[in-house]
């Protein structure tokens, strides 16, 4: 079993699926969706089989393959998974079918019985002369920076107008291509290959946001692309620098394991320069304060499925990159700059949380919560402790699940009310209890309630940080309190209180459909299971983290008994 080229198969299946979906004749939308779902489920099945074949006590990198790709540059097609990459690939495999299911009608809203119903209701309401809420529909509305044809629709759009229909098969094909790229980026053990996936990944996401997103989608897509590309190009310079250094030591190579000892032959200046190239790229991707400004726009304008993958997986490439590339390749630079990064993380945690509290737009709010969460993850990584890094990796998975679920539920709500604004909703729990329930669970997971999976990771991160940077850990703990505030306030404002819905809904709102429940249920189930029993994950993650710690040449500081100041005790609901 272990000698199957698992990772290559995992990468190829979605790509072939994408080609099949794209080759379907126009008009076979239902078929395209079914094929996409099937392919993503096949990938999930394969991933489960691969995880079963993974030996936590075995080699650091397993399922490795290496072939010469471009010998002229010393580039190999080299893949392999350590525990960290494995769990993240598993996360992708779980999220993509969920996203396919949740985005079933996002490309062709006209086909959605639910949205049609809402439209019909709105028409009836308009006929009754109650069209007074046009002003509440205003979302964003700033002009785009794009040439002379701003695609911003007029703010006074008729209430019952559905977003335009777009190519269904393209959407699902893009999702599957994105899956290939995402798997590739985590599986690559050749820095060049990693870079190729890192950049190429942007393109499908760019089209997903730009073609299928909200009213300010082209602005958001452009901002996303340019920020990421800028970081990526700085990384390219660093990648080239790394290659040149390795060439000066013998044969130029990009193979991760051969690059590991390279830092010994670099001067500190060179190391810091190369570290910065990688770091800025990852910090934009992650995103860390102050590189985060693209995320709220992209997260808010992306279609829900796109937002889940963007925040759930794409951004993890940043934190994964810190752990896999920045630290082991440039340990000296990481040690020197680590404290500054921790400072950025703390600022991000507090700043993201405060801004989240101030948001009126649900999707922007969730995006800002992610800025805070990525602060935690990066803090765990740069704490240089086993606990902190294990917690960070765990956090990456759990954040994917919880924020994914939160985005999905918010998406379900927005589909119904066609508004992303918190003030448009109140007392939804009364009419849509299942929606409200899942919203609550996802929210509680986001604020790391004990018993849900995120608690474990947040606790580990804070514990791991405390032993080295006590002040940062204490400040980070304040972020936990703020998290409780923004989540619970959001819940309270929208789900409780007197019933008030966007005018087009009248007094009724459909609860979650079976399809929607099926989409969000696996995430909630995983959050509950991993909250009680995270061992399967930590077993896989721990050896990989220990290997990373060895690469950096760090040992855990003598354990100071964590006094448990941090553990979300204020989560009384």
């Amino acid at each position, binding site marked *: 079993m272990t000698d199957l080229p698992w990772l290559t198969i995992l990468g190829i299946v979605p790509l072939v699926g994408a080609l099949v979906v794209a080759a379907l004749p126009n008009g076979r939308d239902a078929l395209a969706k079914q094929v996409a779902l099937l392919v993503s489920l096949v990938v999930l099945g394969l991933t489960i089989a691969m995880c079963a074949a993974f030996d936590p006590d075995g080699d650091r990198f397993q399922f490795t393959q290496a072939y010469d790709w471009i010998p002229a540059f010393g580039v190999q097609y080299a893949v392999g998974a350590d525990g960290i990459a494995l769990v993240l690939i598993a996360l992708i495999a779980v999220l993509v079918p969920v996203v396919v299911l949740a985005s079933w009608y996002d490309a062709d809203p006209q086909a959605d019985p639910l949205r049609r119903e809402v439209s019909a209701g709105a028409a009836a309401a308009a006929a009754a002369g109650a069209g007074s809420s046009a002003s509440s529909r205003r979302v964003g509305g700033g002009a785009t920076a794009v*040439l002379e044809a701003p695609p911003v629709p007029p703010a006074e759009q008729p209430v019952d107008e559905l977003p335009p229909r777009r190519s269904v098969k393209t959407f699902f094909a893009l999702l599957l291509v994105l899956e290939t790229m995402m798997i590739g980026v985590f599986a690559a053990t050749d820095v060049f290959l990693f870079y190729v996936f890192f950049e190429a990944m942007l393109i499908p996401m760019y089209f997903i946001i730009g073609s299928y997103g909200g009213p300010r989608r082209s602005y958001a897509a452009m901002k996303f692309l*340019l920020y990421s590309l800028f970081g990526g190009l700085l990384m390219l310079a660093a990648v080239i620098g790394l290659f040149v250094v390795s060439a000066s030591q013998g044969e130029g190579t990009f193979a991760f394991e051969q690059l590991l000892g390279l830092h010994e032959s670099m001067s500190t200046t060179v190391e810091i320069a190369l570290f910065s190239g990688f770091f800025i790229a990852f910090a934009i991707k992650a995103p860390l304060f102050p590189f985060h400004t693209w995320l709220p726009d992209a997260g808010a304008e992306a279609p829900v499925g796109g937002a889940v993958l963007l925040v759930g997986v794409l951004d993890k490439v940043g934190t994964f990159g810190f752990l896999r590339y920045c630290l082991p390749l440039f340990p000296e630079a990481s040690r020197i700059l680590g404290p500054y990064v921790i400072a950025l993380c703390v600022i991000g945690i507090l700043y993201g949380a405060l801004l989240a509290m101030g948001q009126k737009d649900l999707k922007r709010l969730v995006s800002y919560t992610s800025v805070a969460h990525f602060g935690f993850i990066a803090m765990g990584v740069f704490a240089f402790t086993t606990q902190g890094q294990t917690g960070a990796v765990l956090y990456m998975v759990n954040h994917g699940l919880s924020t994914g679920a939160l985005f999905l539920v918010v998406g379900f709500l927005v589909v119904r009310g066609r508004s992303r604004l918190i003030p448009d909703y109140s007392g939804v729990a009364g009419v849509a209890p299942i929606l409200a329930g899942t919203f609550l669970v996802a929210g509680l997971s986001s604020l790391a309630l004990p018993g849900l999976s995120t608690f474990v990771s947040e606790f580990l991160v804070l514990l791991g940080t405390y032993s080295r940077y006590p002040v940062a850990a204490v400040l980070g703990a304040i972020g936990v309190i703020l998290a409780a505030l923004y989540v619970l306030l959001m819940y309270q404002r929208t789900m409780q209180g007197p019933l008030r819905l966007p005018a087009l809904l009248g007094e009724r709102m459909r609860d979650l459909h079976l399809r929607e429940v099926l989409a969000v249920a696996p995430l909630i189930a995983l959050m509950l299971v991993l909250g009680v029993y995270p061992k399967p994950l930590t077993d896989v993650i721990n050896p990989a983290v220990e290997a990373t710690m060895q690469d950096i040449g760090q040992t855990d500081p003598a354990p100071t008994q964590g006094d448990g100041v941090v553990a979300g005790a204020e989560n009384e609901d």
Partner: protein
Amino acid sequence: MPSDITSPDLAYAPIAPLLIVFAAALVGVLVEAFAPRAARRGLQIAVSVVGLLGALVATVLLAGTQELVFNDAIAVDGPALFLQGTLAVLGIASVLLISERSIDSSGGAVVARAAVLPGSREDTALAEATEVQTEVYPLALFSLGGMMLFPASNNLLLMFVALEVLSLPLYLMAGLARRRRLLSQEAAVKYFLLGAFSSAFFLYGVALLFGYAGSVELGDVVTATTTAGSNEGLLLLGVAMLAVGLLFKVGAVPFQAWTPDVYQGSPTPVTALMAACTKISAFGALLRVFYVGFGRTEWDWRPMLWAVAILTMVVGGVLAVTQTDVKRMLAYSSVAHTGFLLVGVVAISPQGLSGTLFYLLAYGFTTIAAFAVVTLVRDSAGEATHLAQWTGLGKKSPLVAGTFAFLLLALAGIPLTSGFMAKFAVFTAGVEGGATPLVIVGVVTSAITAFFYARVIVLMFFSEPAVDGPTVAVPSAYTAGAIALGLAATVVLGVLPQPVLDLAGDASRFVS
């Protein structure tokens, strides 16, 4: 004074590619004179394609040759043959584009009678007439022949002749657009005046170098630079003047001013020819002059090329952002690419040479295909080149818009396209050659260029089409073939670049 003139030893076989192309051009002239009007177009296309194919075959057969022929005037070596082969293939693609007749209602992008006064009654009639002229084929062949000779010249005077042979037909062809005649003629005049000016600089440089070295052979110039006590002033001034002429042709800042106007005004197939082939040829000559002729005096000219490279990247990238016309945007993008290419030149190493060769090939294919796509988007007045007209093209014609988007991504240097591999090759060579600051400027400008490429994609895909927008013409096999060729090269070189990288690597040795 030489007392007796020994006749030089003439080896015709090593210069077969040149001879074939020039012979084809002469046959083209004869066809023009003697073939019946109805048969001319078909014959001319056949002669051009066969001639260029023959040249391609000849370069392939000559591969591996490293020698100086014709009294050391012509170098037949790796870089020369590599570029000649590339030029032959891209020349075929350009000829295919010129041959397209089905997308303009009245046939062809080239005007039948260029001398007619723009705006006159005859001119209006001409725009609707289905008349075609076929002199453009021999002109293109002469120009391509000059382009093939230019990077192979090991003698500065011959290099000047090649420069003129490649330039004069281009000046004419720039003025041949069927639509927007005035713009086209303006382009031709501008190109001619500035081109003649730069040629004069080149020639003056040659004269000064003759004064310095007592010879116009690159080999003798090298010898002169190694013997101390020569007149440094003459050398520096000569190199600078020579550089002006060459940098003008590659479109480097501050000699780029002609590019946008000429690219915009010329018939688009001719623009494609200029953008891809002229740049390749001129870079070949630039490489030979600096690597062979002044390889020993790099500290004299390297700072100059550094400054020019930085200026070219930044100015090209920044000015492209402000453009609203597709052709002008591509023109500034070509300026920015010149800057990236100069990073490879400045590296002064075999890696820099092979990287530059690879970049030229990759860029040529992508550019030809991109301009070919531009010819397809039309309204009643001809090509719809204003960017606003491209709004929502992705809805109307996903295939064409998708192709163009892919080509733009390649020009932006996104991985899995040839553009990325090319950039990687020259930037790596740059860092290895000690030009790290240039590479930093290069990556930052790449981000700027990505902005305007991405903006076009935004327009095409993320915006709703305008009601009275342009139509997308269905091309015949000619244009479709050229686009398919460019696209295929862009994909293959992006995914499996090794064979061509090997080829460029093997070719990266000048004979001297």
